[in-house]
């Protein structure tokens, strides 16, 4: 039946890609997207953004790998994960403005689902209050979160920050001096602090 096999149509790569994009649009309109993601080019790399109906749930640096980040989101939130620039656009616009020096605070709502544990969540919420251009120490943040002696635990919570930059864990530094560690590589922490004028040079 070779003749029948010839009925198999040739290249459907482009047509199926376009159709898949339209599925994303329709899915969003029907409220079927639980986690929308997009990648955004910034001076610190192509960031991966993920939002839920509640707000920004994840911001990841490119080293984490898109596949890995999406798998995590599917396992911990919902497998209805789809690319949708429209749903992530409000956060993307704020990030663009931030990196261009036109914005000092983020207004986008945050979905804290991935902040594990009550202390971590309090540490992140306190960190979100540190103003643009200033820094705090791990001990200070731990104290404001209710446990002044838990500087190390605060450091761990900040290292696991699901939404870096927007929750500015880069503004937390060691009391002993220096800029300290950063989950997204130290060069990014230095870049962000310099952008905000909190670090000379």
């Amino acid at each position: 039946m070779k003749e029948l096999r010839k009925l198999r149509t040739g290249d459907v790569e482009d047509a199926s890609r376009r159709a898949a994009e339209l599925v994303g649009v329709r899915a969003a309109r029907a409220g079927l997207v639980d986690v929308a993601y997009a990648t955004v080019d910034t001076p610190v790399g192509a960031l991966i953004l993920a939002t839920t109906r509640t707000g920004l749930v994840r911001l990841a640096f490119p080293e984490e790998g898109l596949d890995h980040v999406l798998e995590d989101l599917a396992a911990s939130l919902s497998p209805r994960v789809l690319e949708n620039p429209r749903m992530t656009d409000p956060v993307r616009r704020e990030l663009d403005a931030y990196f261009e020096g036109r914005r000092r605070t983020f207004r986008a709502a945050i979905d804290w689902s991935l902040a594990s544990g009550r202390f971590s969540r309090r540490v992140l919420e306190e960190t979100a209050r540190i103003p643009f251009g200033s820094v705090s120490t791990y001990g200070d943040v731990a104290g404001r979160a209710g446990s002044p002696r838990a500087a190390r635990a605060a450091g761990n919570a900040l290292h696991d920050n699901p939404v870096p930059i927007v929750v500015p864990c880069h503004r937390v530094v060691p009391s002993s001096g220096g800029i300290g560690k950063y989950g997204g590589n130290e060069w990014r922490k230095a870049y962000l602090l310099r952008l905000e004028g909190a670090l000379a040079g």
Partner: protein
Amino acid sequence: MGLPPFSRFMEEHRVPVYRFLLAAVGPSAADDCFQDTFISALRAYPKLRDERNLRGWVITIATRKALDHWRAERRRPIPVERLPEQPVLEHLDGDPELWRAVGALPPMQRAAVIHRYVLDLPYADVASALDCTEEAARANAYEGRRKLRALTSLEER
């Protein structure tokens, strides 16, 4: 192992689904059936229990959409002069006469012939796509092929 993110599921299966639908309903309806297929899949996705055969699962949904499409077309009153237009034939490879003959088969035979002879699926997969037994899948493919041979000058090769 849980379900993959839906975006990856769609990326992995969009080409075979599209290929099937293009053969089954033609270029003018393939896009709509494709979207309907993946929207249905997305609705059911979080409740899916068995993630081992996602390809089979989505091909089954696509087959159901193609059958629905054929049934709707049959019910729709079509002006007589448009009757020969089975699947729209432009952009498709292969002999137009054969396409018309495939388009004239009863739905289950048509789906079985496309899965088995156009897309080369094994009978186990044809059966799962048609939601029937393997014997029924064989019978439908066989009967479809017999009719095609009668309708066209198609030779056994």
